[in-house]
């Protein structure tokens, strides 16, 4: 009796340790993502971590190769591995910060030696994932009979880990959070402590605690790439970080220097002093400046003043208002009521507290309202409001953004978002968008195409009477007017252009000569294509253009994605192979990630396992089943994340909520799968149910979300929870059921299955993104349906055929 009780306690401790350790790994992954984002940039973090995550797949290979020895030693090995994994979470990051291992991703396409250092970085970050996954894999394989319970603990832990990170990063910096997360793995090691080989386990735990403790008290500094905005700013004389703040959106820093001035594309006519302003950085990238309310508003000398020079705007909405410079500008332009919507909570706190006096924080003024909300959600919630002007933030960056945001979804710039803005305009209301002039023209043309399509969708047959654009030496500002432009508007615009040395680009009755009086563009294709966009008869020219300039939609919300495969060769011939990576780096990085993770998955995981063929048969069903599950689960997860970002706004919270809900619901499904006596039946029923549900979702998911998107939040949460939890519950069943099937027939395949699943999950992330970019989210959902049907066919379908035969 006592023995039984002890065994039961021990088992419960192991399962709890697994959950704790799983929470640590997912939290470590998310924290590492933010740390590398600060040092090198978000896209590179994605590239590096997806390779590190292959540690899960590699652990499967390792177990397959040394299965017997690992299982024999599992009792003491698992806690030791958990402790060592916690140890490496801290040590790997500290190693990667050492000068010898530091690479600069911005130099990757310039200096070939950087590839070697990058490869070292991959290995360093790979270790904690590999060691951590090894502990999980051994537990799964050793307890394959009760995989439902163990998988449940793994998923539950991962789900909770995601939530823990959001809470941690809202209050402390990622660098401080890292050792705290590593401690969870050490705690897991303590929880699953085993009597045998006590010395080894204690040594591992003590060593880990020592290093982790040291890291808590001596977190050190983050070595930034010298090309990051913050690094370059800190090179300026007397530059100093005067404020630092943790935020779930990233690390916020405020820098002061006597040389920091802000006057984007200022008119040549401005002869006063350009005021010095403090710069705000998020994850070491420039985010905005602290507005100085009492100084002359420099924006009055830029094309951004366009909506205010046309006529008085009483009620103004500034979307994605960043640090509030647009709000200050609206107020100083005479607006009586201004609402700014900021998508970073910390920024609002910053302006309200630390820099309130300097910026004359808008809350102090009854006519201004600065709100923390998602822009799209705010527009939805304001269904009774009407605005005289809706202002969007300045797009692109000076000299081009290197295309880093190519695959960044932005639901505030889709055709559906513009329709919402249109619905909120008063009779004389306008939508204003400004962009840096890019070359070759892409952003400029896409904005024009989006505005014209919005006008046409609302029955405007002559968009040229509703659209105006003016340009300076650096920027173009567009204004879409709900009512046709009046002669007084046009006269005001012409006067303003003359005063500021700007040129009208689109204006009713404009002549070609008028477009280049003060600021000439050597390449006149810009005008030609703008005219083509306005002309309903010349749409063929747009389809033939070398870049994607059709408006973004909710199904393909990639406003900054312009590259076409068909013109890659032409672009290379024109600009040279060396500059190609900088044309649309964001897109390229996803491709690089997919290619390198696919090659590594094949070399590191699939190839070695083929050596095991001698000892086993029927490899194909295992490969197909677990491959389909790895891909299918992630495809569905990525679509759910995207749809719910649109549904709720706030990507950080939406991602965390979706992942956690899915993990926990899948965990419950995994636990439930154990109730099926026949795992083949469990796998078949669940895979088929998932396929049917995903098919229904592919067809109707967007419609349901669109219909309910403006419902009260608590109803939306309720709807979202059920829409996510039901398929996720079934999606948690096929993997443990598959493991149980293998446990009965092909036990030696289990590590392989674990490896395949891990590898394909990593590959799925970049693959799904690329498919969504080309075909839209719905296509990805159809593919996920197909993959679950394949999983259904492999074991259950096959068994049905066998029975009939």
């Amino acid at each position: 009796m006592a023995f039984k009780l002890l065994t039961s306690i021990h088992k419960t401790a192991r399962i709890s340790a697994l959950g704790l350790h799983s929470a640590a790994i997912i939290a470590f992954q998310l924290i590492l993502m933010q740390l590398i984002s600060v040092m090198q940039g978000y896209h590179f973090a994605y590239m590096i971590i997806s390779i590190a995550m292959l540690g899960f797949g590699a652990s499967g290979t390792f177990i397959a190769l040394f299965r017997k020895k690992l299982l024999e030693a599992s009792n003491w090995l698992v806690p030791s591995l958990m402790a060592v994994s916690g140890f490496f979470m801290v040590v790997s990051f500290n190693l990667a910060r050492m000068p010898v291992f530091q690479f600069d991703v911005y130099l990757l396409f310039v200096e070939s030696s950087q590839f070697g250092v990058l490869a070292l970085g991959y290995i360093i970050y790979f270790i904690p994932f590999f060691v951590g996954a090894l502990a999980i894999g051994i537990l799964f394989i050793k307890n394959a009979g009760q995989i439902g319970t163990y998988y449940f603990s793994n998923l539950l832990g991962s789900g909770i880990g995601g939530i823990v990170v959001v809470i941690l990063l809202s209050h402390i910096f990622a660098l401080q959070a890292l050792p705290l997360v590593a401690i969870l793995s050490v705690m897991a090691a303590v929880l699953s402590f085993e009597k045998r080989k006590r010395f080894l386990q204690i040594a591992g735990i003590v060593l880990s605690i020592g290093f982790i403790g040291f890291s808590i008290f001596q977190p050190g500094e983050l070595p930034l790439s010298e090309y990051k905005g913050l690094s370059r700013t800190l090179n300026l004389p007397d530059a100093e970080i005067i404020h630092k703040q943790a935020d779930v959106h990233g690390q916020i820093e405020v820098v002061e220097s006597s040389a920091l001035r802000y006057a984007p594309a200022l008119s040549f006519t401005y002869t006063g002093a350009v005021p010095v302003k403090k710069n705000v950085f998020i994850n070491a990238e420039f985010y905005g400046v602290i507005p100085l309310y009492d100084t002359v508003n420099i924006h009055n000398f830029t094309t951004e003043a366009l909506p205010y020079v046309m006529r008085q705007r009483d009620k103004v909405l500034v979307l994605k208002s960043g640090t509030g410079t647009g709000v200050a500008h609206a107020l100083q332009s005479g607006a009586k009521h201004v609402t700014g919507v900021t998508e970073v909570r910390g920024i609002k706190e910053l302006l309200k507290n630390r820099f309130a006096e300097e910026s004359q924080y808008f809350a102090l003024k009854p006519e201004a309202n600065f709100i923390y909300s998602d822009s799209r959600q705010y527009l939805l919630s304001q269904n009774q409001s009407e605005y005289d002007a809706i202002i969007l933030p300045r797009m692109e960056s000076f000299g081009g953004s290197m295309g880093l945001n190519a695959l960044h979804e932005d639901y505030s710039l889709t055709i559906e978002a513009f329709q919402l803005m249109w619905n909120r305009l008063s009779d004389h209301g306008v939508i204003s968008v400004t962009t840096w002039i890019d070359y070759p023209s892409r952003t400029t043309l896409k904005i024009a195409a989006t505005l014209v399509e919005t006008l046409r969708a609302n029955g405007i047959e002559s968009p040229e009477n509703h659209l105006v654009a003016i340009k300076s030496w650096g920027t173009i500002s567009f204004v879409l007017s709900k009512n046709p432009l009046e002669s007084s508007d046009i006269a005001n615009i012409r006067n303003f252009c003359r005063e500021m040395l700007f040129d009208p680009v689109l204006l009713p009755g404009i002549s070609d000569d008028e477009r280049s009086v003060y600021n000439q563009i050597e390449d006149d294709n810009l005008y030609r294509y703008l005219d083509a966009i306005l002309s309903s008869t010349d749409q063929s020219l747009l389809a033939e253009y070398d870049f994607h300039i059709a408006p973004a939609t909710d199904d393909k919300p990639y406003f900054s994605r312009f590259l076409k495969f068909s013109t890659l060769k032409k672009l290379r011939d024109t600009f040279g192979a060396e500059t190609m990576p900088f044309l649309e780096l964001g897109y390229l990085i996803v491709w690089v990630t997919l290619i390198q993770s696919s090659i590594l998955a094949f070399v590191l995981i699939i190839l070695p396992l083929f050596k095991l063929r001698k000892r086993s048969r029927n490899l194909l069903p295992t490969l197909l089943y677990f491959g389909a599950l790895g891909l299918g689960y992630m495809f569905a997860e990525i679509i759910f994340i995207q749809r719910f970002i649109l549904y709720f706004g706030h990507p950080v919270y939406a991602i965390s909520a979706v992942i956690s809900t899915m993990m926990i619901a899948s965990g419950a499904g995994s636990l439930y799968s154990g109730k099926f006596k026949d795992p083949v039946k469990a796998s078949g029923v669940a895979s088929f149910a998932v396929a049917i549900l995903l098919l229904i979702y592919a067809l109707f998911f967007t419609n349901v979300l669109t219909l309910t998107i403006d419902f009260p939040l608590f109803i939306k949460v309720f709807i979202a929870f059920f829409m996510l939890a039901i398929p996720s519950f079934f999606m948690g069943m096929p993997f443990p059921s598959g493991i149980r099937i293998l446990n009965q027939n092909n036990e030696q395949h289990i590590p392989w299955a674990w490896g395949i699943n891990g590898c394909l999950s990593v590959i799925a992330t970049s693959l799904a993104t690329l498919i969504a970019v080309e075909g839209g989210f719905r296509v990805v959902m159809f593919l996920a349906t197909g993959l679950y049907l394949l999983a259904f066919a492999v074991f259950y379908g096959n068994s049905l055929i066998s029975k009939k035969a």
Partner: protein
Amino acid sequence: MKYFKQNSVIIFLLLFLYPLNSDAQDYTMQRQSMVETQIRNRGIRDASTLRAMRQVPRHLYIPENQQRWAYEDRPLPIGYGQTISQPYIVGYMTEIIKPKKGYRVLEIGTGSGYQAAVLAEIVDHVYTIEIVEPLGLTAKAILDKNYENVSVKIADGYYGWEEFAPFDAIVVTAAAEYIPPPLIEQLKDGGRMIIPVGSPFRVQQLMLVEKKGDRVSSRSLMPVRFVPFTSGD
């Protein structure tokens, strides 16, 4: 013994001096080739610009670990988040301001010092300002050694260099989101100002600002011309 000594000297010269001489010759050849293939063949025709670029040893303005790529057709990192521009862009920016003897040129952003050196080969005096002190000091050391007509100041380029204004031309090598009003003021009537627009690794546009009386105008130039497909293509 005497022969041995003589031979030793020859061997010494062969062993140590030849490689140095060979390196110098190698760089000279690379430089000539760079001017022909990257600059002249791409349409830079101004004789003084071509001569200056043949003259200035670009590799000396580049950190040692980058020198072997000095004459390649690309920008190179020089530290502190800065780059030395691609040779073609340097040539293009030089030609566009129409430099000549008697000119006083202001450069904002000394960086490596290479652009200032190229200009110093043509004009009377180059005044160059660098805001990042270590970069400015390195560039000053090499420019002081090779040119008497270059003045280097470590300061904020926003204010220009009023003491020596007005300038016939201003070259802003560090891309800026705004053009400081003092610079427009310090530009001579009829003067030209050139500004690159783009990331450190990819300059695709240049902005030429011209001042004629009270009128200031800009021209966006595309060193690399992209021609979109049309239905006729």
